[in-house]
């Protein structure tokens, strides 16, 4: 199998997972596709070296996190501060509405806290793996996760499923 075929096989098997992770980070499928493309192009450039890594998924995840955090630093992506948080609308049952509510809650978090939640609860990474992906200490991951969950709880009513 040529390196290019190997690359294509890897992308075919992981594209959807990468897109979904990117989407949870940025909350926008177009930006998610941009981020995923950026990561895949970088991966292709270093494929001969990267293909030999023991944990290629962790490497790619780290690239995605860096791409996302870099993207957030760009001037046109900066969030604008508002005096008051948007009013939280009561969420009736129903997937589309609920999905928007979850994404809104995620969007209200700072990028690093959002990344911690996505890695811990969507990618099912341990604290140690999350710290490695974000390039920070395990203590930072724990504190960021605790604060992120605290923020989420502040915006959901008691008894909501997310409260647990």
């Amino acid at each position: 199998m040529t390196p290019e075929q190997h690359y294509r096989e890897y992308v075919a098997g992981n594209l959807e997972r990468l897109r979904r992770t990117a989407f949870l980070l940025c909350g926008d499928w177009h930006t998610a596709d941009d981020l995923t493309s950026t990561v895949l192009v970088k991966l292709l450039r270093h494929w001969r070296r990267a293909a030999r890594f023991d944990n290629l998924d962790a490497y790619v995840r780290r690239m995605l996190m860096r791409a996302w955090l870099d993207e957030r630093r760009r001037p046109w992506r900066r969030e604008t501060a508002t005096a008051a948080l948007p009013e939280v609308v009561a969420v009736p049952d129903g997937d589309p509405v609920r999905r928007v509510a979850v994404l809104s809650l995620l969007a209200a978090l700072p990028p690093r806290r959002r990344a911690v939640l996505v890695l811990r609860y969507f990618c099912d990474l341990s604290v140690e793996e999350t710290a490695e992906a974000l390039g920070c200490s395990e203590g930072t991951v724990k504190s960021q996760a605790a604060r992120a969950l605290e923020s989420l709880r502040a915006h959901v009513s008691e008894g909501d499923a997310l409260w647990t």
Partner: protein
Amino acid sequence: MDLRDELYEASAAPPPTTIDVDRLIAGEHRRARGLRLLGGVAAVAVLAAGAMTLPRYFGESQAPPPVLAASSGVTTTSRAPLPCPTPVATGPVVLGGGQPWHPVTEDCGAAIERLTNAVDALIARELPGLKGHNAGVDKSAPPRFIRDPHMVTAYNYGVEFEPVNGRRSFVSVIIQAGADRPGVAASALPCRQGEKGCSRQVIDGAIVQVHGQSMNGARGYQINVYRQDGTQIVVIGRCPDPGYDPPYTADQLVRIAAAPELTLYP
């Protein structure tokens, strides 16, 4: 439903992707080709610039060393063609850094031939008993012009002598067109107050400065001559073996440096 399920639910059913792996790979191939092309163009440009620039500075230093044969003092017959400064290979010789105070009009090759013969004769006359060669090793340089952006362009000739009592020695002669009038040039290098072995005298109108030298234990002399016609001459003689004097005196070197035939304006 907990947060984990919510996240899975929120990212479920994604729209069709706009990512085309074929397009990504084709784009990367185009980029790699462009970089290779750019690298090739840059390499060719650097080589071309180097080929144009380097000979200008170092071309004259790459001349083959002279073929040696015996003579009275210094073995210098049957020389290879003498190198000249590249920009004026066939025109008048322009020595010295910057604008010479007094322009030199003698042909380059003729000047080198004349000065080399004069230095050989002076060494044979003033340093009898010493046998030297100018094979271009150590401090003995074949007659040539040195051209370097950081130093003056000058006629340069070095002779290394056969050891006397096991001690080596050499004499180096530099002749250049002075950029300053003789009086100004001479005052630019005064003897420092209390400098041991430094003296000044006038010989046939030329200002002659004598410096005793000791460098890392190697003893010797440096003679600076500022001739009225604008020629500057530096003669350096040293014994590289620490703690020993060279097998000649400062007066012998002064007689070489102040000889009237060492001029760029015959």
